[in-house]
């Protein structure tokens, strides 16, 4: 944090990658990218590349079944080559926590009560990590669930808001995450206006926090629109074929 901390907001007020504080990185979305999975999606937020697959509703071992709803089983996992340094394949404490946080975000929107005793399995693989992997992963998971035809109350868009050099900025990249003052991942069901994931890793005043949530919601709404369009295109393509 000390020596070579880079400057994150340039003199012209722009960020290290030339974005304005409220800009998203270029975002790419694609669904049905895998053959075996019931649903799948590839999502890129700038250099962050994530792929998600959904299997289910399917049979699940008795020991984890619930009588009145489906269980969600979610794994957030990083490929060994996704980070600057080679990552060991064993799940880290961070991966275990993020799997839980993403699962809980999805619990809030999936109509699990329609599939008692079944499981809906969501596998998220981070292929390249450049900031915002959990939120890109949540977006990908939501798209993959839609692609699998799992009924949901709403789609969920994920985006990380940060504070860098004192400025509240949208969709932080790895450099901004590492050297910034705060990283606040948000999962937002924009159609119904509900927050399904929220963490704060950093320090914010109450005013900054309010501003960050506001900026995050607006960013998520834009991502949400792109998600809708992506799914719409796919269904059109299906209808037209």
């Amino acid at each position: 944090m000390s020596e070579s901390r880079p400057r994150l907001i340039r003199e012209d007020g722009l960020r290290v990658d030339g974005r304005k504080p409220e800009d998203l990185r270029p975002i790419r979305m694609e669904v049905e990218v895998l053959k075996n999975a019931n649903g799948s999606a590839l999502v890129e937020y700038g250099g962050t590349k994530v792929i998600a697959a959904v299997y289910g509703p399917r049979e699940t071992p008795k020991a984890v079944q619930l009588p009145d709803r489906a269980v969600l089983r979610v794994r957030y996992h990083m490929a060994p080559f996704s980070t600057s340094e080679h990552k060991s394949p064993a799940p880290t404490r961070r991966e275990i926590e993020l799997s839980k946080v993403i699962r809980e975000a999805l619990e809030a929107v999936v109509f699990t009560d329609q599939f008692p005793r079944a499981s809906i399995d969501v596998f998220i693989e981070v292929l390249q990590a450049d900031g915002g992997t959990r939120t890109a992963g949540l977006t990908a998971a939501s798209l993959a669930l839609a692609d699998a035809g799992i009924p949901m109350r709403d789609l969920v868009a994920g985006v990380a808001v940060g504070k860098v050099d004192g400025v509240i900025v949208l969709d932080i990249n790895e450099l901004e995450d590492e050297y910034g003052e705060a990283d606040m991942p948000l999962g937002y069901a924009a159609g119904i206006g509900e927050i399904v994931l929220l963490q704060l890793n950093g320090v914010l005043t109450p005013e900054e926090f309010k501003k960050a949530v506001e900026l995050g919601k607006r960013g998520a709404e834009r991502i949400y629109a792109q998600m809708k369009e992506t799914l719409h295109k796919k269904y059109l393509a299906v209808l037209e074929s």
Partner: protein
Amino acid sequence: MSITPQREPIMPKLRAENIIKMLKKGERVDNRGLYDYRSISVSIGIIGKAEGSALVKLGGTQVIAGVKAELGSPYEDRPNEGVLQVHAEFVPLASPSFEPGPPNEDAIEVARVIDRSLREPRAIELSKLIVQPGRLAWVIYDDVYVIDHDGNILDAGMIASMIALAVTKLPKLEISGESVKINREVKETPLPLNTLVTTVTMGVLGDILVVDPSLEEESVLDTFISISVDEKGRIVGLQKKGLKSITPKTLDSAVEIALKKGEQVLSFIRKVISSPQEYMKW
């Protein structure tokens, strides 16, 4: 893989409905107000072998935090800082629903939220814990040990950790040339702290917020939010948990409550650590 958990313990339906009904009227089964903490009692120094320790009873929940200091390597990307390691163990002694074995996702989450709440506002001044830059540093282990689980482990663990760290005395270092050894007979230097921190955990029932939920309340509430605050009234961490969503409006209220209740808890912690001798009974 994170899996939707079984709801534990299973509560009679009538009891559950009653708890909900009361909460909706702003009442709680244990007669607290919605924003009241249960009574907190603290015992300091109960683990003499630890560099610092505290037992916190938050209602029926009992958590011990034990702080140990060892020598180790600094992180490669932090060559001029000591190391903080927070771990939580939910030992099976504490609850019929805890299993022996490595920490599960709940224990890991508790430890990581406490860790971040300490780390982000630099509650501990890690730069003063370096012994030989890039080579040797103090490694501070904060172990959160749950021995009775009656709800809101996070706040109990956070308070116990904060107090245990605040009363920690580092052992003396005996340095001769290259060799550095710990002399645990002499413990003198307090851990350098920049601020006290606490978490305020609330259950969420629609737009109703319930501070410091008990185990019974936890098992009927689906959703929780924990907000970490420091002595400067800043938000230094946040974690939404559970199965349901939260609206932006309720989030605003939660922040407001957390800042207010957090201040009270921090005052309590300050009181304890300023007259530790009064809390040295178990």
